[in-house]
């Protein structure tokens, strides 16, 4: 098979298997055109920077939900890694690269702790991670009692502005490269298949000889890792550390629902939720620009989500019956 034909058949296969994500991308493009008509100065870079932390959160949440779990502590882990990064960078500005790597490792470690607790306690994921939401939020306040610390210039530089033409924001490139570097090899590995298998049928996967518990812990570790990327993105975009979690938990769940990841587990990918985040972001920007009151704009976002998810459920049902 030559490279081009291979690539074409890969794209075709992906589009066939993931019509939902293709649909979301179409919706996003239409929204973007509409937004441009509304406000010709609007660029994707502002959206990409604002969306970066929550896009990482959505990617992380998607992995654990595909494995059949859910991580309610994701916003707290982002706050924790955000303040750790900001305080370490303030103290050791010359060690910025090791600090960033350390923060990623801490994220993975925190996720591993979540996963181990879920596995050994046998308490439902939602309960364990709800408890950990408070634990990690408290830890963030212990690290930094009030907003403070600082970032490092290169974190801001790699995520700000556009590459060449205006349509390619750096923050989007960073997002896609980082998520792709982790997700594409993972998806093609035994671990990736195991994550889908345990989310699809936990008992069946166990009976097939899948290491259910190890897989679950790995999924949580990956979620923690992505949460730390979210935390670092917050450090980059705000320039400081803020110990109080933002609304990232709810946004991450909203994005995965919108992005075609089944909350029952075993289905979906990471691209859909990321596009979902962008859609939610552009709608919010449009409503604000049109002078919509923030409270009312939140209601509209909720209504749009309900409609999209209902349409999705309806399409799935029709496909089943066909």
């Amino acid at each position, binding site marked *: 098979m030559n490279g081009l034909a291979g690539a074409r058949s890969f794209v075709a296969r992906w589009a066939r298997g993931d019509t939902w994500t293709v649909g979301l991308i179409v919706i996003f493009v239409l929204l973007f055109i509409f937004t441009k008509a509304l406000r010709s100065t609007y660029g994707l870079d502002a959206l990409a920077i604002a969306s970066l932390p929550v896009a990482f959160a959505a990617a992380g949440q998607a992995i654990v939900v595909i494995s059949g779990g859910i991580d309610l502590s994701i916003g707290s882990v982002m706050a924790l890694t955000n303040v750790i990064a900001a305080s370490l960078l303030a103290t050791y500005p010359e060690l910025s690269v090791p600090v960033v790597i350390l923060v990623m490792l801490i994220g993975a470690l925190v996720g591993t702790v979540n996963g181990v607790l879920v596995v050994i306690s046998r308490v439902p994921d939602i309960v364990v991670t709800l408890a950990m939401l408070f634990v990690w939020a408290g830890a963030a306040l212990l690290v930094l009692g009030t907003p403070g610390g600082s970032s490092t210039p290169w974190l801001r530089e790699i995520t700000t502005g556009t590459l060449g033409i205006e349509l390619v924001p750096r923050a989007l490139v960073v997002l896609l490269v980082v998520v792709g570097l982790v997700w594409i090899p993972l998806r093609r590995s035994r671990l990736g298949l195991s994550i889908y298998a345990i989310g699809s049928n936990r008992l069946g996967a166990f009976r097939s*000889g899948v290491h259910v518990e190890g897989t679950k812990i790995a999924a949580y570790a990956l979620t923690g890792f992505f949460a730390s990327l979210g935390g670092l993105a917050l450090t980059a975009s705000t320039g400081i550390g803020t110990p109080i979690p933002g609304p990232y938990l709810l946004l991450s769940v909203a994005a995965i629902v919108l992005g075609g990841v089944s909350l029952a587990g075993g289905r979906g990918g990471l691209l859909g939720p990321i596009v979902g985040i962008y859609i939610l972001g552009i709608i919010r920007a449009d409503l604000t620009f049109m002078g919509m009151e923030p409270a009312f704009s939140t209601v509209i976002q909720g209504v749009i989500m309900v409609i999209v998810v209902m349409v999705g459920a309806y399409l799935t049902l029709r496909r089943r019956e066909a």
Partner: protein
Amino acid sequence: MTAIPQPETHATSTPPRTAPIVAMNDIRVSFGGVHAVDGVSIDLHEGEVVGLVGGNGAGKSTLMKVLSGAQVPDSGEIRINGQRVTIHNPRDARAHGIETIYQTLALADNLDAPSNVFLGRELVGGLGTLDDAAMESATRELMERLNPRFKNFKAAVASLSGGQRQSVAIARAIQFNAQILIMDEPTAALGPAETAQVRELIRQLKADGLGIFLISHDIHDVFDLSDRISVMHQGEIVGTVERAGVTTDQVLAMIILGKKPDEVTSEELAALH
């Protein structure tokens, strides 16, 4: 797998010739106060089908889950080819050549057929990436034999029919040169054509020298396919009989009354009709 010739020894009451490939001795499993399996001993030889029958809740599935590693027993010993083994999980069982087709289908619904066949033992290429092409072609080859009309290799198995799903489950069990096959109600969800296909397959696997435990509520299936029949009742083995030495009525009486044929009075037998 070596095909051993099958001498017709049903008429004699001596147990089959070679040492058993599986011997389970005095197995006990209880759930709270329920003695699901209460001191059961059972064995299986190469190229032999042992039918395991009994009423609902008799303990058949639980006993077989012990052998397939899905249920750790409270006590008892398992020997494979004479060697004492411990089976803590399904991976251990598979390492001993034991494969299971479960009563409730144990497929990962959102994965395709090749992924299900190889789940837990995926083929990987360089850099540890899944070798989808190899897994798919191996699955195609197997299906050629099991269910030639099976064509859906890319779809999630959730969208397949009951018979197709069962083909996937069976393909998974025989892909790895199992020595011992456990089939818990393998035809329960199937139509007549697929049932006939599964029966034919069981005969073929038996001829290949596999030992098969067959759990079924269909007494005709059991009589058709088994060499010996073990009857369970309330967690215990009522008796193990040579297929050729009993009638279906006698086996039914054992299932329902929980007594050996010679312990059943004629009134009890009459009451069953």
